[in-house]
């Protein structure tokens, strides 16, 4: 597989790991006093566990798993709204598979489907569009979920629907943006982070400049990284080198995919279709200013919030408390590790997730559980 296999070469990994070791030594970081690096993106979290990178890197490097899994940060209230939308008569509710198992306060979409709602997993919003074309007598709702990577595809699909004059296609827009939560984290007084691995695919859309504030205003290094293991290790090395050298700049390890200024077509589509919400709720993080997108008035015909009076479009805004005993916000801000949560592997497992981070396989807790041996590993360690 071109552009994939090459970046999984174990020989090169050895070199990277040795270099990382050296830089960690140069910094003087240890297990007791590690360098904290946050990989913002859930895809990176996944890759770290998938390839065991956390175990290969020295003890002086500690990964903190960031908020970059759109499924994990989805508040239960949004899931409840999805269920409500899906359970309407004559609706086909379409979603990426990731969102199927996320629990709402009463049920997940998987359970709503079992209860009779017509819910279909799609690979692309284009597939939802095609369903709308083929089922003119039914209302096809697409659950627009994801960061800037996914945001343009939904926008382009809405533009296409408008061009075709479809009247039965809407998007339940829950798209969110990466920079605001990073800012929120950096503003957190408990923040311990020393640097960031930046989200490669988000950046291919928005470019690298939206991260300038991290280096400029907060003095933290950030390296935009690809998703193969060598990409990640190289990015970690680059972050460490900045730390060692006392620099703080935005670097781009993933230049084969990420242009400095992002993708103009995608940015134009985003600009055309969405506007910022004043504020948006993140599971585990609470309300964050200007962190969510809504569909502009001119595309109101394709906006499920407007058409069905739900979500942020509802008269009465819905908000749901996080479940009792959930330590997700602490994990997400790097204050504790998943295994430090008292619920981990007991009240909270991938089969019955309590908190957001156990829901998606991108979630830090789920990754710890699945790749790290679950509760047994915690107890073995104790």
């Amino acid at each position, binding site marked *: 597989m071109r552009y994939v296999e090459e970046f999984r070469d174990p020989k090169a990994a050895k070199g990277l790991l040795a270099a990382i070791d050296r830089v960690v030594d140069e910094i003087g970081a240890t297990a007791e006093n590690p360098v904290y690096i946050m990989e913002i993106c859930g895809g990176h979290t996944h890759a770290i566990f998938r390839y*065991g*990178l956390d175990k290969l890197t020295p003890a002086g490097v500690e990964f903190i798993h960031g908020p970059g899994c759109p499924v994990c940060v989805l508040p239960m209230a949004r899931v409840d709204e999805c269920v409500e939308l899906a359970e309407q008569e004559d609706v086909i509710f379409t979603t990426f*598979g*990731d969102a199927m*198992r996320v629990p709402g306060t009463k049920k997940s979409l998987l359970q709503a489907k079992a209860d009779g709602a017509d819910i279909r997993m799609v690979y*692309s919003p284009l597939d939802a569009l095609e369903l709308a074309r083929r089922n003119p007598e039914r209302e096809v709702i697409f659950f627009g979920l994801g960061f800037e990577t996914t945001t343009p595809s939904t926008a382009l699909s809405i533009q296409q629907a408008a061009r075709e004059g479809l009247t039965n296609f809407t998007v339940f827009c829950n798209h969110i943006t990466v920079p605001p939560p990073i800012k929120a984290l950096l503003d957190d007084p408990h923040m311990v982070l020393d640097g960031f691995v930046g989200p490669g695919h988000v950046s291919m859309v928005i470019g690298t400049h939206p991260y300038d504030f991290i280096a400029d205003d907060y003095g933290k290094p950030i390296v935009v990284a690809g998703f193969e*293991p060598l990409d990640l290790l190289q990015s970690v090395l680059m972050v460490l080198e900045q730390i060692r050298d006392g620099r703080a700049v935005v670097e781009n390890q993933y230049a084969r995919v990420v242009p400095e200024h992002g993708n103009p077509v995608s940015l134009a589509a985003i600009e055309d279709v969405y506007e910022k919400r004043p504020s948006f709720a993140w599971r585990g993080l609470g309300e964050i200013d200007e962190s969510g997108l809504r569909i502009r008035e001119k595309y109101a015909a394709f906006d499920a919030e407007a058409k069905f009076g739900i979500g942020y479009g509802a008269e009465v805004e819905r908000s749901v408390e996080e479940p009792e005993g959930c330590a997700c916000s602490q994990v997400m801000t790097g204050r504790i590790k998943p295994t430090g949560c008292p619920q981990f592997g007991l009240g909270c497992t991938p089969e019955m997730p309590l908190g957001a981070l156990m829901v998606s396989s991108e979630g830090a807790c789920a990754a710890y559980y699945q790749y*790290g041996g679950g509760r047994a590993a915690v107890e073995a360690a104790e």
Partner: protein
Amino acid sequence: MKDVTGQKVLRDSRVTLAHGGGGKAMRDLIESVFTDVFEPDGMEDQARLTAEALAVPGARLAMTTDSFVVTPVEFPGGDIGKLAVCGTVNDLAVGGATPLYLSAAFIIEEGTEIALLRRIVATMRDEADKAGVRIVTGDTKVVGRGSADQVFITTTGVGVIAPGVELKAGNVRPGDVAIVNGVLGDHGACILAARGDMALSSDLVSDCAGLGHLMAAVQAACPNVRAARDCTRGGLASALNEIAEAAGVAVEIEEDALPLRAEVKGTCEILGLDPLYLANEGRLVLFVPEDEAEAALAAMRSVPEGEGATVIGRAKPAPAGQVTMRTLFGGARIVDMLVGEQLPRIC
């Protein structure tokens, strides 16, 4: 009415509720379509079988059942009939039994094309012949439109376990070598594409195959083969987890030893799936003592279904019940059982 070959001619091109009514229409359907595969004992509703192999002191009867519900019912490399015969033959074979007899029960949706049923039945006939089993009894039910998805088949297999043969997951011991008989995940990836809802296409063909002859060859070559498990729903990962748990051993596999086709990898990359969990219908994992591994590989490679046989890992003493994979990087990850189905991801 009968045609020149003596087969009942059916006026209908699709199954109607009349074909399930227990009357002449049903008998006509059975005589016209299913007689090729069922070998009923006259008009009796039960087969009566003389099995010398069972009369041997110490011999045991093996019995297993599975329902088959695949969508689409026909796919590259097979159909539901092939799955139904191979799946049950394999469940017998991996337990060390010689498959002897199958039953086949069909639940047919009103409106199903009779030509489709004929094709499925022909496949079953072929596969049964290949496997050397007889389909000795059967049943057909017809349900209303929307109460089934074309056709479901339940096969039950009966076989004989020769005296002294004892293959089971619990037998696996630390040091035993794990072998698979070929590339993994072809069936699962092929069905995903064939289903059409992800709009993927590829040249992948299901790996569906009967593994009775392969198991016979291995058992002949390796007196101490410990256990075998076909890697169906839940894939290799589930089979290994079951074995690790039953035997109280750890199993460690090597990522770079896993045989995977490029198209299977591609499917997994696109949809965010893990090939370890993809279903197979002609793949098994076998545990043998280290000193029989070469013999097992040779025996497997001597039959077509084992041409791709390869060692993928081994059992270790601890942690009991845990399956891990050494990644390309020398890192280790736990290969747990799936929670539910694997769902395509975007993130």
